[in-house]
């Protein structure tokens, strides 16, 4: 059963997604902030990580993904670099994505708007898991 770890500070959103994923046959784990999330990555070794962009600070999601995908040789999460990351944004779904601070390099595998329908979320997740 594939393990999904979601890092998001919105408990209600997480609760709804839990129902969705468990009904679809996934094992769902949740962390409410970056620190907890990164610990769980190490402990659980999930098959997919879902990150929220804005948590405590406006760009916390990015910093988590940058830590996970840190390319330098002795990086803490080097062993977990291969885990696909799906980023959920609260940005307007119709506009092109604009983020600060680093627009050039965004170490995630896919973006999805948080307001996407559940079907879209499931589709994206199975697409990413299929590729891994």
């Amino acid at each position: 059963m594939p393990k999904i770890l979601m890092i998001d500070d919105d408990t209600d959103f997480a609760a709804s997604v839990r129902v969705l994923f468990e009904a679809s046959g996934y094992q769902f784990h949740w962390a409410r902030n970056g620190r907890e999330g990164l610990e769980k990555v190490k402990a659980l070794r999930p098959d997919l990580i879902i990150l929220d962009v804005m948590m405590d600070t406006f760009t916390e999601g990015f910093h988590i993904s940058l830590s996970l995908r840190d390319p330098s040789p002795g990086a803490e999460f080097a062993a977990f670099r291969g885990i696909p990351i799906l980023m959920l944004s609260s940005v307007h779904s119709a506009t092109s994505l604009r983020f600060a601070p680093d627009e050039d390099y965004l170490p995630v595998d896919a973006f999805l708007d948080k307001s996407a329908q559940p079907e879209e979320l499931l589709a994206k997740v199975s697409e990413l898991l299929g590729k891994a």
Partner: protein
Amino acid sequence: MPTMEPFSGRTMAQQELVYSLRWLINMRWIASAGVVVGTAVAARALRVPIAELPLYLLGLTLLAYNLALKLSLRWLDAKYADVGAVFQWFARTQIGLDWLGMAVLIHYSGGVESPAILFFLFHITIASLLLPHDRGFLYVAVGPALVGGVAVAEYSGLLQHVYLVPAPLHRDRVYVMGVLFFFTCASYVMAYVSMSISRRLRRREDEVAGLYQGVQATLSSLDFRTVLDKLTEATARVLNCKGASVRLLDPMGRSLEMVTAWGLSPGYLEKAPIDLGKALIDQEALSGKTVLVTDAANDTRLRYPDKIRAEGIVSILSTPLIGKTGPLGVLRAYGDERHRFSKDDAAFLAAVASYGAVAIENARTYQMRLDMDREKSLFLRTVTHELRSPLNAVASILGVLRQVCAGDLGAKQADLVSRALQRVNFLQTLVDDLLDLAAGKAEVLNTATRERVSLSGSLRDACARFEPQALGKGLELSLFEPGEDLTIRGDRSELDRILNNLLSNAVKYTQKGEVRVDLGRIGQEARLTVADTGIGIPESAMSQIFEEFFRASNAKTMEERGTGLGLAITKDLVARYGGTISVRSTEGRGTGFTLLLPLASDQVP
């Protein structure tokens, strides 16, 4: 102090020298003509027994070498951008030749009797003005020496005296000594007067040039820190003193803080603001006058005499910085000797302070504007997040309920969940649109984002985004592009908003047929048309189609909900980009929106 003239790269003083040399050459035409004509008049009309022939020859020689000098100067001016030793040497040559010529003239027009001796004073003056002052008085000695030489030569019989008067005055010792003595005195007096005047003028010139350069530097920036740094640097350079500092008043006007200093060690800069009551010198200055301190270490009005002594500050000049809104602070100049600053310097510092205050106020206003913009942006981002989060959570919960728990819910419950979800989705769209509208109306001074954006690229991306939706409805979405890539100046996300709105409307309000997108170029503008075969816009609604929250009657009957904000936002954005948007439509047949946007300037051939 060297200051650059804008065009030639020479300092003002250097350019002055070249002008003076040119002027001298021009004067010499007149002088040479004068020699010839004067000789003719004196010899023929007045029948004075001067040596005609030699004098005519002298005149012609003058004309000849003046021509040579003119051509040489032209050549030198063209060849050498930097007016340096070459031009000085050239000046000396001219003057030297003139003086020799004068000596010859004097000899042939009567020696010690010659009235032409007086003309020599003219040359002394010119030399004093043109040549460097450090050895000025040495050069001046050459004049009397030459005249003296002629007199001695004639006296001793080496040279043949030309008699203006029958008496042999040239052999009269008293007469000769007398003439030489008075001539020498007159030469030195002329030289001294000329040099004093020219020294003062040159100093003024330097000060004005320095002031000009200082103004340029200070006013060239709107960045607060840069303005302060350049102001203190300009002050110290212009006054040619040890250093300068700026202290600014806090908003309440109760304390002064040293915000920048030039030429002082970091240790001297005070860390904390000083209470105005304790800053006696500055208090005095702020009352409107410039304050001079001549013995800083022992002045009771100043604190920390040890620090002052250690820094080597002996005199201080303090002047208020008065802005349009009131006193801003104090500008100080520091000197390393007691009588470093004169009244002129005080007046000068006041002049520097007046433009400095203007620059500081401008920079502050600009900074405030930038801060306000940053706050606005931050506020918008926070509001966006705060509004969207709960909506996303609710939509997700309802969506999951509908999808996953369909089995557990009865038909009635499922229906209610569906309705709630629909309304929440609409609310999400409405919030998005309102935030777009708010962002547009906030009119942030986004100078940084007025970058070049590829209209062609953004359009291609937008079409790709809507293709699935169009295909899903059985519509054909086609894009026709010009041969070149069109670029506009603006913000990428704003452009996307415009394009998305137009395409979204076209696809949304078309049930069958096609959406056709045409991009082209007309002169300096890009022309974009989005045409559909949709429900069209009724005649009655055409005038209101761009209004906020307006939805035409036939749009409202459609299943898909709209907020009525899309076109209002689009129109707003287009207007800010300096473009226009227009619409043609036939109800039931279709609609076409035409957008004209100015192209980025370097796009234009």
